């Protein structure tokens, strides 16, 4: 094989590799859009109107989990505190945080008009990491939300959502860091269970 033909083939292979990588990333946009639409459908389409809030949460969860592994984002938010819990506590915290976030999501959209969500630019933000911008129009106001994804062993997974400069993972990491300065895994579980049984989100603060 001459040097020239080798260079040509190498260039072709690299080009194909790059193209495959770019189209794989672009496919993530469709997958993400599909997840958002499917979750919103549960809250807003007539098919689901008879469902209770809890049933809606379960349906939303099913839609999300069919596309992404929600544990990734929660594990990332827990960070090093993961090692401060035993195996049973780790699994329980994963489950309870998931329920809390889904509950807040469904309650947060209750009674509002369906937001329109359009995905914007996809940016590579590091090794095996991408960021997808989404433009949300809700009640005539426009919001920008960034979805951060990382290529994991299980495929591309969402590890952070940034809304108006506030990273959800960082916010939870801060809370959990604060918790473990004084509390334990068992305390965290008790706190999460307590939050989940409250019907109203304002109930817990009394003076």
């Amino acid at each position: 094989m001459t040097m020239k033909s080798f260079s040509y083939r190498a260039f072709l292979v690299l080009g194909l590799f790059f193209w495959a990588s770019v189209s794989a990333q672009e496919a993530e946009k469709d997958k993400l859009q599909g997840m958002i639409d499917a979750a919103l459908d549960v809250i807003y389409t007539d098919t689901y109107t008879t469902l209770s809030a809890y049933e809606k949460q379960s349906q939303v969860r099913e839609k999300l989990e069919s596309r992404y592994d929600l544990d990734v984002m929660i594990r990332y938010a827990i960070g090093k505190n993961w090692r401060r819990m035993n195996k049973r506590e780790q699994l329980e915290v994963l489950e309870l945080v998931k329920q809390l976030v889904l509950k807040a999501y469904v309650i947060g959209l209750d009674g509002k008009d369906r937001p329109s969500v359009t995905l914007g630019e996809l940016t590579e933000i590091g090794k095996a990491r991408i960021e997808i911008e989404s433009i949300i129009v809700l009640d005539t106001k426009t919001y920008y939300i960034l979805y951060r994804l990382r290529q994991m062993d299980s495929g591309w997974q969402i590890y952070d959502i940034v809304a108006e400069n506030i990273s959800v993972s960082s916010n939870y990491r801060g809370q959990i860091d604060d918790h473990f300065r004084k509390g334990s895994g068992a305390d965290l579980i008790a706190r999460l269970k307590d939050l989940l049984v409250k019907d109203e989100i304002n109930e817990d603060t009394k003076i």
Partner: protein
Amino acid sequence: MKTRKFKRPRAWACLIGLLTVTTLTAQVRNLTEDEAFFYEEVDESTDVYDPFESVNRFTFVFNDFVFSNTVQPLVDAYTSIAPDPVEEGTSNFFHNLRYPVRLASNLLQCRFKGAWVETGRFAINSTVGIVGILTPADDYEGFTPIKSEDVGQVFGAWGIGEGPYLVLPFLGPSNLRDLAGFFGDRAVNPLKEPFGVIDDWKWERQLALSGTGYIARSPQIIERYKQLKGSSIDPYSSLKNGYAQYRRGAVAE
């Protein structure tokens, strides 16, 4: 029946073994990389200097009580009585009144384009938009809304540190730099003391204006606060972190 003899069985065994080992190693490496990823620092720092945590927590609970029992019912009544266009118009009116703060903050950061856009928006909205109730400037090219600036952000852009985190009674989360910025905002606002331009303004009228402005912008604030609180493990910590991230982002922009 003739069976095909497998040539070089050792070489094939070695090759298959090598491939298996390589695949397994790659999987283990991926798992380790994935595991390491979970322990890395988050992009946005979670550190907030909070030496007055116990006092802040008390003030947070106090504010929450006031919010839930005083501001929330007032806002609920306001939002149920006022039709959406009235709500929006009132919010626009008070936003327009804060133009001097935004202008000064842009100029102090040498953001002349921002100052120009804010001035254009103020001129268009105050005239065509009937004292700022409407926002026709949104449709003028070059005068679409930009991020609001305040004196606290100016201090941040000048490199002044945040200082300790504070929870101010009735006002909510802040830090030492933003508290100074709050007084700076008042100083450059001709409708507020100590440099108010209207001499014969009675305090009752000033209070009424400030109170109405507070209620007008509260629905959005309350909505965000409720969402943040509803999804948080520790609402105090969540608000502290959320506020710090929001302000850091605003300064960095």
